[in-house]
C-alpha cells in the first residue's frame, strides 16, 4: 500500500507521535503527566468514536469499560501478583466480553433508549463493585509500592506506562482508520445513516453493531489498567465516573464524530482547555459547566465537529482529513 499518499492515515499517527515525543525531549515529569492525560483522552474518545461516530449509537456510559478494565487489571497486579502485560490483556478482554454480552441485550434499543441503558449499566457496575469484597468494596484497592521494583522502580514504571499509553493511542488510531476504510466500517456507517435501509441491503446489523461495541470497549479497558497501575490506587468513584463519559462525548463531537482525526484533535483541545480552566480561579469549580456549555454549542452550531466542518467548507481537505 502506498500509504504516504494517504494523509488521512499518517497525519493522526504523526500528530500523536509529535505530542508523545515532547516529554522525552524535555525529560520533564510534569510535561509527561500532561501528555499522559491527553493520550488517555485520545484513547477514550477514539474508542467511543468507533461506536458513536461510525455506528451512530450514543453510549453515555462508556467509561464503564475503562473502570471495568482498570479493576480487573489492578486486581491481577495487586492481589494476584501478575505482571502488567497480563493485566493489560485481561483488562482488554474482560470489557470486550462484557460488551459482547451487554450488546446482545441493549443494542436492540435505538436512540435515547440505548443511551439511557448505557448510563444504567455504568451506575449498576459502580454499585456492584462498591459491594464486591474481592475488589475492596467501597474503599477500593491500593498497590504495594514494592510492585514497581519489578519495573525498575517507581520513576521508571511511570515512564513505562507512559510509553505503553502512547502505543495504545497509536493502536486505537490505526484501528479507527482501518475500520473506517473497511467493508465492516461501511456497514457500520450504513447503520448510522439508516438502520432499516442497511438491513434491507443485507448488512447483518445485530452482529455488526455488537462487534463495533466490543471493539470500542477493548481500548478503554486497557487504558484503565495503565492509568490505575500508574495511579497506585483504585476506587469505585474514580473508575466509573459518569462525567468522564460525557466529557468523552464532548471530545468526539468537538473534533468531529465519524472521523479518524476528529476525536484526536477534540481530546487534545479539550484537555488543554480543561487544564487551563482548572488553574483559573473563576472556573476551577465549574469546569464541567464549561464542558456542558461546549456540548450544547457544538450540537447547535457545528454538529459535524471541527474536522467535519473543515471537510465541508474546504473541498481539497477531504483528501487530507479522514
Amino acid at each position, binding site marked *: 500500500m502506498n500509504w504516504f499518499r494517504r494523509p488521512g492515515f499518517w497525519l493522526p499517527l504523526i500528530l500523536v507521535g509529535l505530542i508523545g515525543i515532547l516529554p522525552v525531549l524535555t525529560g520533564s515529569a510534569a510535561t509527561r503527566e500532561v501528555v499522559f492525560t491527553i493520550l488517555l483522552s485520545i484513547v477514550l474518545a477514539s474508542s467511543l468514536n468507533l461506536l458513536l461516530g461510525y455506528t451512530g449509537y450514543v453510549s453515555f456510559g462508556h467509561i464503564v469499560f475503562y473502570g471495568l478494565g482498570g479493576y480487573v487489571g489492578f486486581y491481577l497486579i495487586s492481589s494476584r501478583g501478575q505482571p502488567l502485560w497480563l493485566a493489560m490483556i485481561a483488562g482488554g478482554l474482560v470489557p470486550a466480553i462484557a460488551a459482547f454480552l451487554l450488546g446482545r441485550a441493549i443494542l436492540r434499543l435505538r436512540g435515547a433508549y440505548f443511551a439511557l441503558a448505557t448510563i444504567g449499566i455504568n451506575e449498576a457496575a459502580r454499585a456492584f463493585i462498591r459491594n464486591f469484597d474481592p475488589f475492596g468494596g467501597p474503599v477500593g484497592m491500593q498497590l504495594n509500592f514494592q510492585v514497581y521494583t519489578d519495573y525498575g522502580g517507581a520513576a521508571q514504571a511511570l515512564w513505562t506506562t507512559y510509553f505503553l499509553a502512547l502505543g495504545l493511542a497509536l493502536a486505537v488510531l490505526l484501528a479507527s482508520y482501518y475500520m473506517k*476504510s*473497511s*467493508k465492516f466500517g*461501511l*456497514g457500520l*456507517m*450504513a447503520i*448510522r*445513516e*439508516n438502520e*432499516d*435501509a*442497511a*438491513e*434491507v*441491503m*443485507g*448488512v*447483518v*446489523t445485530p452482529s455488526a453493531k455488537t462487534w463495533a461495541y466490543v471493539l470500542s470497549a477493548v481500548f478503554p479497558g486497557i487504558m484503565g489498567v495503565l492509568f490505575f497501575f500508574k495511579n497506585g490506587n483504585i476506587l469505585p468513584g474514580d473508575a466509573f465516573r459518569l462525567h468522564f463519559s460525557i466529557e468523552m462525548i464532548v471530545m468526539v463531537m468537538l473534533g468531529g464524530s*465519524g472521523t479518524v482525526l476528529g476525536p484526536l484533535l477534540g481530546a487534545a483541545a479539550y484537555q488543554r482547555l480543561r487544564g487551563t480552566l482548572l488553574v483559573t480561579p473563576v472556573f476551577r469549580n465549574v469546569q464541567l459547566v464549561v464542558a456542558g456549555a461546549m456540548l450544547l454549542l457544538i450540537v447547535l452550531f457545528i454538529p459535524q465537529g471541527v474536522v467535519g466542518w473543515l471537510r465541508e467548507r474546504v473541498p481539497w481537505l477531504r483528501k487530507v482529513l479522514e
Partner: protein
Amino acid sequence: MILQVLGVDKYFGGLQALSHVTIDVKPGEILGLIGPNGAGKTTLFNVINGVYPADRGSIKFLGESVTGWKPYELAKKGLARTHQIVQPLNDLTVRENVMVGACFGRENESLAKAAVTADEVLAFVGLADKGPQLANSLNVAQKKRLELARALAASPRLLLLDEVLAGLNQSEIGGMIETIGQIRQQGVTVIMIEHVMHAVMNVSDRVVVLDYGQLIAQGTPAEVSDDPKVIEAYLGDPKLAEELAEAARRLGEE
C-alpha cells in the same frame, strides 16, 4: 416459481392489512402489483422481504421456505427492494450508497470489487457523474434512481420496486420504464407496485390487484383492467378509475 406467497395474513392491532394473500411469481417475469391507497401493497412487500413477520401463511423464495427470515438474510439470498419513501444514506456519497448494496448483497463483494460494481450500476441508472456527491444532495428523481442502483448492485434474483415512478415527470417516467425493461433483460424477476396506470399496464407481464388486503384479481393487464371487481375497487378514486379505463382502452386498441 421464484417466489410463492401462500395464504399470508398480516394484522396491525385490529386492522387486517393482508388477508389470505396467495401469489406465485414466475422467474423472469415483471409482475405489476396495483390497488387503491391502503390496499396493503407496501405491507405485502414488507412481509415478503422480512421487515414484518407474517402472522399466518408462508413464503417460499427460490424453492426454500423463508418465512420469518430477516431482511439481511433475504438480501444475501438474492432479494432486493426499493422504498416508496426514499431511504438514502444521507451522509455517505452516492457511490458509497451503492457500494453498500454490492458489499452486503447476494455477491458479498469485497470493497474494491464493490467500487467497480457501483460505478457500473451508477452508469446504468444514469447517475454516472453523481458518484462523489453526498446522497442528500440529489433531487427526488435522482434519489429514486439511487434506490434502484443500490438494489441492483446486489445483483438480485428478485427485485421489489415500490413506486419508483411516483413523483417523476413524463420524460423521467419514460427513462425509468426503459431502465426496468433492461433490468428484466438481465434475467432479474421484478415485482412492481405502481400507481401510474398506463406504465404498469404496459410494462407488466401479469398484474395482481389488492383491495383491503385481499387479492381480488390477477391476470394479464388487459384482463385485469376489464375486470368489474377491479373497476369497482377503484371507484372510490375517480382519477385512478379514469386512468384504469384509459389503460384498458389503449390495451384494447393494441
